[in-house]
């Protein structure tokens, strides 16, 4: 079995209203060096197979078809074998 972690990030060319709003909070807290806050998604799940190639293929397809929208987001993932 593999544990997959997928991170979905909004493309840097697309405005991120949430990130901008959160950064205003940073300023209110007095953090004046915080720049370019962007909010993405962290998704974890298990892939129930021993075949790493198959696991990679499934995670990639799952990420492409559902977890991210390629028009506005990029994704990256890691796979870790677990017992």
């Amino acid at each position, binding site marked *: 079995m593999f544990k997959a972690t997928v991170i979905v990030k909004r493309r840097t060319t697309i405005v991120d*209203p949430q990130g901008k709003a959160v950064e205003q909070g940073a300023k209110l807290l007095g953090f004046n060096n915080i720049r370019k806050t962007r909010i993405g998604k962290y998704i974890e799940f298990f892939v129930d197979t021993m075949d790493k190639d198959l696991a990679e293929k499934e995670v990639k397809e799952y990420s492409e078809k559902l977890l991210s*929208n390629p*028009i506005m987001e990029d994704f990256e993932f890691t796979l870790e074998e677990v017992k």
Partner: protein
Amino acid sequence: MKPKFGVVVFPGSNCDYDAYYAVKKVLGYEAEFLWHKEKELKGSDVIILPGGFSYGDYLRTGSIARFSPIMDSVYSFAENGGAVIGICNGFQILLEIGLLPGVMIQNESLKFVCKDSYLSVQTTNSIFSKDIGKSVIKIPIKHGEGNYYTDDETLKNLEKNDQILFKYCTIDGKIAPEANPNGALLNIAGIMNKRKNVMGMMPHPENACDPILSKTDGTLIFNSLAKNIF
């Protein structure tokens, strides 16, 4: 001949009854609900994907609803030239499934906006708008993610192919930043596919049909469609 409207019901749809009520009880067309787990469109001439929060808006708005069994049938129906209207969340589903280009991101203000909006009718070259008969219509909006975004090339193509149907404007028809409620590119409120049989709009025409609500411009869209669909 009167068209039959099929109103798709997803878990989390909340404007399905409003749409059904508007087209059937106010306008007198035939209408039927289509449960998302079904595949049969039951002889509908027009499919309405209603507003709401299908699947709780989890992940991205419309992202899970697009995989509902009924959406395969809706997709084929649209590909074969069938008329489809996506309203608000329905628009978001049409974007996710790829029947319309682009994406919706959160409103620039990060606020849920609920108010009447004025829309400038950008083209009469479509079944949805041919007989609207006005250049500015008043239709309410109620959404948190209506900030239409797409890449430059797609945007140029939308303009070139006359696919932009509605833009947010002032009461006198000026397309200005102050009339843009959500930050949408070019004040876009509604677009169509290239073939102009699929239309998505963030404002809710079904909530501007019954005279008791003090605004009836939504009827112009449904009636234009009914008049020109056959």
